[in-house]
């Protein structure tokens, strides 16, 4: 009873967005055409996504192919384990101690029985690091933004977001039922237009580093405009906490604007190599979110095992600033090597380096070629990025050795030349 994709119909005429909107008389009518497309998509290259890993997400990883079932050992440029924390022996040891002390899970919501002393210790450590009165933990980065925005904003309020913000910010904004407007990516002039003499509660939401382009928020101009319109400012530093700023506190510290930002968000799954997210701000914000951030209120607390490991990771990051220096040295090295070969890296200035292919049809062939050549890189295509802005996203880590980065560039250049991209 469902619609069908004609067998001869071109696979590339469809993408994930094609299957989001549809109408019919049956909820399941979309499943059959989607499955037909999905099965084609796997064969055409989508099988490169979510290949099961049987090792730590370190600089080399063991993967199993989804279709061919072959086992691969690849040089990893895909994981956002920016400081290499997920495999640090001290972090793993701390997590094991946490497992012994607390058991596997928290077995309760943080507002009931799920708060353990390691959670409070981690919140205090993060508050001290961020130089803020209070930090609230959430079980994931996604639930942080969803809970924060839903908990704080209400119908009739205005949320103005950069159009490239993470889905968790979009979902939280939708859940709040506030009016939501998006300004063109990193364009303060467009942000200005979105206020339109609006009165009432207003919140501007930006990210420190944008995950698909690797570019840095134009925070000074955005702060100036937001302040002029009496709007509060929230910055999600998921990809910039522990990386930017003299003390690693993020892009807000980098620009000297920490006190101008009302709400700071970070994750523990990227530079910290663990899981979870946090909100840093005032104690009154903490108290309010404790009562109204439903994604936290109605979830089990972050696993105490992860919290124990992350606590150690935060302490290491604070006492070893050389890790951050090592990351930036690696980023500079990688960028210089790519520039030698005139590889197109878009507007990135961060540790996230998009390798622009700009061909939605060929990128999967190139991805297969890269994997066969020993490199683990994920193709990023529409709708994650604009049409014909497909790219590979390189995540540089402090854990990469110079030799590994050189090997990666050698593979990249060889494959891109063979494929006619360079």
């Amino acid at each position, binding site marked *: 009873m469902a619609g069908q*994709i004609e067998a001869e119909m071109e696979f590339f005429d469809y993408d994930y967005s094609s299957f989001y909107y549809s109408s019919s008389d049956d909820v399941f009518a979309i499943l059959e055409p989607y499955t037909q497309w999905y099965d084609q998509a796997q064969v055409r290259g989508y099988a490169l996504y979510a290949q099961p890993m049987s090792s730590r997400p370190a600089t080399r990883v063991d993967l199993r192919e989804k279709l061919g079932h072959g086992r691969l050992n690849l040089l990893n440029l895909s994981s956002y384990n920016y400081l290499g924390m997920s495999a640090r022996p001290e972090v793993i040891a701390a997590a094991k101690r946490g497992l012994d002390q607390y058991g596997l899970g928290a077995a309760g919501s943080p507002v009931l029985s799920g708060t353990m002393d390691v959670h409070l210790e981690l919140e205090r450590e993060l508050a001290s690091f961020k130089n803020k009165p209070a930090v609230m933990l959430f079980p994931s980065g996604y639930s942080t933004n969803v809970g924060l925005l839903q908990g704080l904003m209400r119908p009739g309020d205005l949320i103005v977001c950069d159009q490239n913000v993470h889905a968790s910010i979009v979902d939280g904004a939708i859940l709040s039922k506030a009016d939501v407007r998006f300004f063109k990516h990193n364009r303060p002039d467009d942000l200005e237009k979105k206020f339109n003499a609006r009165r009432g509660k207003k919140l501007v939401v930006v990210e420190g580093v944008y995950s698909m382009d690797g570019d840095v928020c134009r925070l000074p101009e955005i702060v100036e405009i937001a302040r002029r319109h009496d709007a509060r400012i929230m910055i999600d530093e998921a990809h910039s906490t522990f990386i930017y700023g003299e003390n690693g506190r993020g892009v807000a510290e980098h620009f000297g604007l920490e006190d101008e930002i009302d709400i700071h968000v970070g994750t523990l799954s990227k530079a910290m190599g663990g899981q979870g997210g946090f909100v840093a701000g005032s104690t009154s914000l903490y108290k309010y979110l404790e009562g109204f951030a439903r994604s936290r209120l109605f979830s089990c607390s972050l696993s105490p095992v992860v919290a124990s490991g992350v606590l150690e990771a935060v302490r290491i990051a604070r006492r070893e600033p050389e890790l951050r220096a090592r990351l930036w040295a690696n980023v500079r090295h990688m960028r210089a090597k790519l520039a030698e070969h005139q590889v197109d890296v878009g507007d990135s200035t961060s540790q996230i380096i998009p390798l622009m292919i700009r061909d939605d049809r060929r990128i999967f062939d190139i991805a297969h070629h890269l994997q066969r050549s020993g490199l683990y890189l994920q193709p990023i295509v529409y709708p994650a990025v604009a049409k014909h802005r497909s790219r590979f996203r390189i995540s540089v880590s402090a854990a990469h050795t110079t030799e590994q980065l050189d090997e990666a560039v050698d593979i990249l250049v060889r494959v891109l030349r063979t494929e006619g991209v360079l």
Partner: protein
Amino acid sequence: MNAGEILQYRYRDAVNGFFEFPTPNARDILPRGLQPVEPHHGSSILAVTAFEFEDSAVGAYREVVLSVVVAPRLLPGEPMPRSALYPFMVGTTTAAARRHGIEVWKLPHLPADLEVEFDRHDSQVRIAAAEGGRPILELTVADPGLTWQPVEHRYQTWSQDGSGLYLANLVLRGAFMESEEERGALKLHPHPFAAGIELGEVADTPFREQWMRDGLESIHPLQPLPAFAER
């Protein structure tokens, strides 16, 4: 012509720009039962389309169309369309094309002959539409240097009259370019053609631009969906 036959329109250019505009405005335009597609929460898509038809059942003519992009209808046993449109205002350069569009496709037309000019260059095409010298719109779509692909794309269009909603499948064949480089532009002038649109709220840069050349549009017979419209 027979109401049950597939009608074909040979075109030199089919040009389309997708512009964000507020979803409440889109809902005001749409009949009940049709849902606007939102590229961002709160923003729907105004499609501005221009055709230069070189040959059809009503001869050669030019046309500009304003549509809202809506959720396609999955019909049993039928291929899935690439997307669906609800055209809510059409303007043509000839009375014959206008009568044809109203009688056969039940599409709302501006009751006047328009002047529609295509100014073509290698990397862009600019369309200017006016009525008796009064400007209606200017649309520019740019080709950032992409490879043009021969395609056969299937779409749905919706229309309505007092009896309810109608759906037509259409297939566009031709050389195709699609870009999200945001190099195009739109200027909508205050004019009855754009009545119902909050002009100041429509993006002036398309987030997606499409251009087809030297192709054929085939429109299948209208299918009435009265039960769907009654919801």
